[in-house]
Each structure stands twice: as C-alpha cells, then as structure tokens.
C-alpha cells in the first residue's frame, strides 16, 4: 500500500517504476525522486504506473510538477498506464491531453523525445 519506487536508464530515457498508492501521504516521496532525477540531468522521464493501485490529485500534482520541470530543460515526461481506474482521474482533470500516455514501457522508451 505504501509507495515503492525504482528507477533505471533505458536508451535515452530514465524509467521510474512506481508501485502502491500515490496519494497525499506518499506523493512527497515521488516528488523528491523526480526532483533528484531532474537535478542530476535526467530530462526524459518515463513513469511506469502499471503497479500503481491508487492515485489522487496530489499525486497528479506531482506528475504535473515533474512535467513542468523537465519541460524547462526541453525534456519529456511520459506515462505508462493501461489501468482504467487510474486513467479515470487523468480523464476527469483533462490531463490525458497533457501527458503522453503509453501502453507499455517499450513504447514509451521508443518514443521520439
């Protein structure tokens, strides 16, 4: 239920695998990780959300914050998500139009940055 985070490099992207619940309680942890990555020069991020069980608006806010950060470096932030219950909150908030959302990590990594 708590957040799990792991990241690795794949091609020109950095893939962050997130598991558990991204909510008002755990979102700060995810924000920290994204800030660290951007500060260390990773500007093309793929956030793999296939193991995320719950996402609230604070979690969304962290993803939006990440997007703004990488954009400041002409980078990209791509999401991997096929779970309907998670996609729902992106739809409600109109963020499906803001984030590139992919069906698989391979797909996201292959995408033109």
């Amino acid at each position: 239920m708590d957040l799990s985070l792991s990241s690795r490099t794949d091609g020109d992207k950095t893939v962050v695998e997130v598991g558990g619940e991204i909510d008002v309680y755990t979102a700060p942890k995810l924000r920290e990780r994204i800030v660290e990555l951007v500060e260390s020069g990773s500007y093309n991020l793929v956030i793999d959300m296939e193991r995320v069980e719950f996402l609230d608006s604070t979690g969304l806010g962290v993803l939006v914050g990440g997007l703004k950060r990488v954009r400041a470096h002409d980078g990209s932030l791509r999401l991997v998500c096929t779970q309907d219950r998670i996609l729902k909150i992106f739809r409600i908030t109109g963020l499906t139009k803001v984030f590139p959302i992919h069906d698989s990590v391979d797909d996201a990594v292959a995408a033109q940055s």
Partner: protein
Amino acid sequence: MPTVELRFTPLPAHVRTARLVAVSLARRAGVDEHSLDEVRLAVGEAASRAVGRHAASCPTEPVLVRLTDGGDAFVAEVVDVAGDNDVDHLHDLPGADDDPALDLFGDDLSSGVELAVIGGLVEDLRVAHTSVGTAVTMTWPAVSPVRSPGVSQAAVPGAAFGHTPPSA
C-alpha cells in the same frame, strides 16, 4: 440511521484512515463494487482538501468525516471549519486546451483541483461554502445491503449525533 463519525488531526496520514473507513462502510452499506473506487477517490479528495485547509489555518482543529448508512443510500460528509478565505471554486473541467488543465495544479500540493475531481466523479454532490468552512456531501445509491447476520439493524435506533455542518 447507522452513522460513523471520524474526527482527526489534519495530517495526510489520516486521509488514508478516512478512505479506509469510508470504503469499508460503503461496502457494508451495499454500494456496488464499481462505485467503491469512486467512494475511495472522492472521500480521499474531500479529506485531502479539508486537511490542507485546516493545516493552513487551524491546525489544531480536527477535520470531520461523517458516514451514514441510509438504507438505500450511503452518505459521506466531509466538513472543514477553516473559514471562507481562499475557498476554491468548482472549476470548470478543462477542455481541449492544455494549459487550463495544468493551471489546476500548483507546483506543490494541489489547490482547488480536489473539488474539480469530486465534481467529475460524484453525481449526487452538494458543496456548502459558509463563513465557518466547507461541507462536502456526497451520496451514492446502496443496492444490495449486506445486513448483519442474525442481528437486526432495526433493533437499535441509532441517529446522527447532533453535529451539524457549519451554517452560514
């Protein structure tokens, strides 16, 4: 009507407690499995918003979540007493443009987006802004009530406990 009230220090951790209790009671009240995801998210959003507002303006006051099994409906009320300063408005949901969606979010903790999410999720929603604070009332139909095995619910005529949402 069977009622559970939860009052908690405005901390992010307790938003989880509110979700946990709301989902557990909604399930028992007979809210269908599909809608439980809505209950989880909507109660979580309302509680996050209340926690944020209390933390900012009255961190020693507890947030109130009241859950009522109304027989054919499950009602969740989330009440803050953080006043009417900086009350967010029910945003229009963002449309085709990119930027409005982004503008919903601050760089840090979200601000105002919670009500937008709740508005997009919950059909039967009332939001009462008063000078005292906000009361968010969300109702879901309860279809197949799971009743106590062998113990009649009707035997004990519970009632709400005389707490009222902040009035104007």
